Structure formats: structure tokens, C-alpha cells
């Protein structure tokens, strides 16, 4: 999953080397924290969050077979 997030995000940002995904897990959920270079924030969020929404849709679809609920958070 972590790899999938990186595969999606890296080609759309200017600084792919700054893309980082941290995983936090508890009993009910898995939270993936995506961080990108400050200047790339706009690119991963998009107009009215359109890009962020698209990334989430794809990631949630990939995680639908898993037991735990998945969350994707985006930050710097």
C-alpha cells in the first residue's frame, strides 16, 4: 500500500525524492501519512482537493479487501 501511494504521487510532483509515507496503525484503522515538499502541496491537493480526492479513491479501492479501515492524510 505504501508503495502504491508513492507510485501514484511521485510522477505528479516536482520533488519525488521528498515524497514520504509514514504508517500508523491501531486496532481498527491504518493511517498513511503522506508528506511532500512544501512547493508540491498544491499539486497533490489540486483545485478544491480534486487530486487528493482522486488519490484517496484509488488508495481506498486498493485497501477495500483489507479488514481495517484505511485513512490517507496529507501534510508537509
Amino acid at each position, binding site marked *: 500500500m505504501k508503495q*502504491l501511494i508513492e507510485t501514484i504521487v511521485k510522477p505528479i510532483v516536482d520533488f519525488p525524492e521528498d515524497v514520504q509515507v509514514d504508517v500508523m496503525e491501531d486496532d481498527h484503522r491504518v493511517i498513511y501519512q503522506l508528506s511532500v515538499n512544501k512547493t508540491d502541496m498544491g499539486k497533490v491537493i489540486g483545485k478544491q482537493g480534486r487530486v487528493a480526492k482522486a488519490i484517496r479513491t484509488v488508495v481506498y479501492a486498493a485497501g477495500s479487501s483489507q479488514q481495517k479501515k484505511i485513512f490517507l492524510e496529507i501534510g508537509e
Partner: protein
Amino acid sequence: MKQVTATGQTVEEAVESALAQLQTTKDRTDVDIIDEGKKGIFGIFGSRPAVVKVTVIIDPIEEAKKFLTQVSEQMGAPAEIEIKREGKQVTFVMSGEKIALLIGKRGQTLNSLQYLTQLVINRYATHYLNVILDAEDYRNRRSETLIQLAHRLAGKAVKSGKDVALEPMPSYERKVIHTALAENKRVKTFSDGAEPHRFIVITPVRRSV
């Protein structure tokens, strides 16, 4: 963008050296000759090496295909991808065993992947390219469903004399509905709301005698 500047005794030699460094072939690169070089007298005095700048041309369609292949594989639904190009419209057709996962409910995953692919392709493209992503003929099946829905709801609007609002849809799905009802004289259609929640409203035409 990958690019390298190389020198050699002749232009050909410089280009070859650059291609070796980039590990590519000449047809996939753009060669810029900075200095043709000079042989000099007896090849000794006043000789100057040739300098070339070689840039690897990135094919946006190849990049987009690579992106889709990787993403689908990592989603656990590896897909074969077929490409059709007509002008500035590029269609990617995916096929594979677990295609349903890539389409999602009402095509939302497919639409998201289409949007992301569009972003990837236009990072590399010199001219704006429009991406259409399809799988198992989903787009065709969906537009047939939409046309049926349009006619049914147009009937409802006429019967009840009230506006009928549809759920939010992406622009090309709304277009299918507008087109389907364009010839229906008893109703009018328009879109309301802001993207990405724009939706169609079908309104009955009041008969003014």
C-alpha cells in the same frame, strides 16, 4: 529531464559518447550541436573538440502507460493496457482479471485513475492531451445506462410537471444526458452546482398555448 553534454573528436563521436552515458539510442533523443570542433593543422595545432548536448525525449504516452501498469499492479489488479490515439485524445483500455476493482462503484475508481493519468501525461506532453480510461467497455455500457435513465426521468418530469434533479456526475457523463434529451421537445436540461458536484436538472417545458 535527462540530458548530458559530451565531447569527442568529431560530432559523431561526441554523440555516441553521450548516448552511451544515457544508455539510449539516437532516435529517442534530441541532439544539439554546441561546437562542431576543428581538426586543426595536422590534427595538432588549433584543434578543438566537438561538443554536443543530448537530451532524452520522454514519450508522455509511454510514461502514462508505465504509470497505469504500476498502479494497477500495486492495487492488486494487474492489467494489460492498449493505447489508441486520435489527435489530442488518448484512450487507454485496460483488461485483466480483477478489472472490477479498477472501475469501482459507478466508475469512481476508473474516473480517479483517469484524472491522475491525465496529470501524469500532461507533465511530459508538449501539447495538452486528453485522457480517456476505459475497461471492459465500461464507458459504452455506462452511456447506454445514462441514456435510458435520461429518457425515464424525462418522462417523470413531464408527468409530474416538476423539475427532476440527477445526482452529481462528471462532465462527459452529463454531456451524454444533455445529448440524449436534446431532441426531446417536452423537456429542457441544464446543469447546476459547482464542479465536482455539478448535476443535471431536467425541467418540463410548459406548454404556452
